[in-house]
């Protein structure tokens, strides 16, 4: 078991350092800690509208979801690994070729995920927060408490997704039945008032009121699903072969006028058919937008004269650029290198797909304008379109067709922030004087065009590594 664990730890490090570069990846926890530190320093500013308990709850949910994502990736991320590294062969998938039981491999895998991601995310985040506690009049012990409770939240997410995936591996009906039973119990609990935030999320309850009760409940939520997952693990997944009629041609015909229609049609099919289609939208788009609304409601109280629609439009422009990440997530240039296709042609196709997908954030903006602030809709729209184009151009220039991988490199991420933050802040401050100044954002179109042009040239010259 220790050998397996160590091999998996090395493997995980090598996967990440191969993708992001050893130094770039080694700095990732430092970036997390710095952001947590700076964010914690700002907490007193928002205290009236965003109490510490609410911040703690948001952090707990964030780490719970992180556990879910790590678990999901570990169990279902083979597709991604294959596309990044060719036919991936990881220790976790090797129970058929090694004289080690699936159960032992899976147990070691769980322990590895626990240790590795606590070191990568939870510890730096808690350390950043702990370092800020003396400056925001909090007991430094709260930092330790944050570390323990966030670790518990992360592990609850991880163990639940492992449990559900084990059920899925045995039978979809078993999984569906369990989800229905849990949902009915949850609804009943809510109706009877037996379920509160604290009982639903014991790590949060432990953070608010440390005691053996919430701790025991949190441990129960971690250990029982994990133990069941390990005991009943199976790698014999049911057949999930999917069949579809030819949708590429009809879709490409409809998009013909745009040019690169087959690339756009392929992007659309990738998005629609890939796992977690709706989940991707929720996590990378609607969830950040929700957070933006929360933050805006705070800002409006502190900065009089601010136009919420314009600020929302600017931030929407940045968040919308994550659409490019969806569009490139399941595509790899290795699928094109042997065809008469240039990198720049694929990028152009993605840009057109991005343009079409941007109708969604425009609709969100129009909806926001309709609920109040229609008077500044035009400058807000200009701000959204320009910022979205500029952020996209920066992303393309820095990461080419690999934003999902390269933005996690500390160096690239820092350059991304440095390129975007000043323009963003200037626009927001200008709009405080007069919302109409948001139209100045149109000036961003020029650097955006320049960056896109240079990005196309830069990535055209790029060569697939490996031999």
């Amino acid at each position: 078991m220790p050998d397996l664990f160590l091999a998996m730890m090395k493997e995980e490090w090598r996967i990440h350092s191969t993708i992001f570069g050893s130094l770039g990846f080694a700095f990732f926890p430092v970036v997390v800690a710095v952001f947590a530190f700076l964010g914690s320093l700002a907490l007193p500013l928002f205290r009236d509208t965003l109490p510490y308990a609410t911040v703690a709850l948001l952090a707990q949910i964030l780490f719970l979801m992180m556990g879910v994502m790590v678990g999901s990736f570990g169990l279902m991320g083979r597709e991604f690994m294959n596309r990044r590294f060719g036919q991936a062969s990881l220790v976790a998938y090797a129970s058929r070729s090694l004289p080690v039981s699936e159960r032992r491999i899976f147990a070691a895998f769980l322990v590895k995920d626990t240790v590795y991601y606590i070191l990568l995310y939870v510890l730096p985040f808690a350390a950043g927060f702990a370092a800020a506690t003396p400056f925001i009049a909090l007991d430094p012990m709260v930092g330790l408490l944050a570390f323990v409770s966030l670790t518990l939240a992360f592990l609850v997410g991880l163990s639940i997704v492992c449990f559900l995936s084990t059920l899925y591996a045995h039978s979809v009906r078993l999984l569906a039945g369990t989800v229905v039973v849990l949902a009915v119990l949850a609804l009943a609990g809510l109706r009877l008032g037996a379920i509160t935030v604290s009982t639903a999320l014991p790590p949060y309850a432990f953070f608010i009121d440390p005691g053996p009760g919430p701790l025991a409940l949190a441990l129960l939520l971690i250990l029982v699903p994990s133990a069941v997952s390990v005991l009943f693990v199976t790698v014999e997944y049911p057949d999930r072969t999917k069949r579809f009629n030819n949708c590429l041609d009809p879709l490409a015909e409809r998009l013909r006028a745009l040019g690169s229609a087959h690339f756009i049609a392929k992007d659309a099919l990738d998005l629609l058919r890939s796992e977690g289609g709706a989940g991707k939208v929720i996590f990378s788009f609607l969830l950040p937008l929700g957070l933006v609304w929360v933050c805006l409601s705070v800002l409006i109280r502190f900065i009089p004269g601010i136009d919420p629609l314009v600020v929302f439009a600017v931030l929407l422009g940045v968040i919308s650029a994550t659409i490019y990440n969806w569009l490139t997530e399941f595509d790899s240039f290795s699928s094109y290198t042997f065809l008469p296709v240039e990198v720049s042609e694929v990028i152009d196709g993605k840009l057109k797909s991005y343009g079409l997908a941007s109708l969604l954030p425009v609709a969100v903006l129009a909806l926001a304008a309709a609920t109040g602030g229609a008077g500044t809709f035009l400058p807000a729209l200009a701000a959204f379109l320009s910022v979205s184009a500029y952020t996209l151009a920066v992303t393309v220039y820095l990461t080419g067709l690999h934003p999902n991988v390269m933005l996690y490199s500390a160096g690239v991420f820092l350059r991304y922030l440095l390129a975007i933050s000043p323009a963003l802040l200037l626009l927001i401050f200008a709009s405080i004087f007069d919302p109409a100044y948001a139209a100045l954002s149109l000036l961003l179109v020029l650097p955006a065009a320049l960056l896109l042009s240079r990005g196309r040239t830069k990535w055209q010259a790029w060569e697939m590594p490996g031999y």
Partner: protein
Amino acid sequence: MIEANDLTKEYGSVTAVNRVSFSIAEGELFGLLGPNGSGKTTMIRMLTGQIRPTSGSARVMGLDVARDPIRVRKLVGIIPEQETPPSFLTAEEYLRFVARIRNLDRVDERCDRWFDLLEFREKRDVLCKDLSRGTRQKLMFAQAFLHEPRLALIDEPLINLDPIMQRTVKDFLRSYVRDGGTIFFSTHILEIAEEICDRIGIIHNGRLLHSGRIEDLVGSGRHLESFFLDLVKGDTGA
């Protein structure tokens, strides 16, 4: 059809291909043989403009590959080492996608021909990610020959195929060459080369150790396996 002059590819301190020169005439079936890591895949990637040589040059169908990689890839068919069709297109959609990239007409007819020849019609509506490796290799074969190229470059042609399909593919390659096509393929399986090649090259540590006709080798009374082993084991890399 192919003319390589002093082709060299270096990856940092590793020289994957070291000053290799050879030429392949129209209508030849040429097999590049070598152990794993000997430089076969790098050679194919250079000849098809997927990577640029560190030094040296190559002309394919009269075109300078380094200057005109896209035109080269328009003309030739390529099967890469790893079968990587896009995950979320079906087998049929992928062939139609390639047909659109190559601006082909008679797409139904072309697709049908390959579904039938390689016997995977019943898998045409399955997502590529759900196909077996063997079927993916069939799909890669189909995409490479969809535009009926005069030259095909294939990295390990029979990988993941069952014996029946291996026979079909070998017969197809021979008939393709009989009809005037040219094939350059790489493999480390000597029996394939012995059975279907007109000419072979043996590469080791990035250097071309031998290039000659199979029938000359057989005529001299030697088996390809012993010849290959003697050559490779005797190569000190100097």
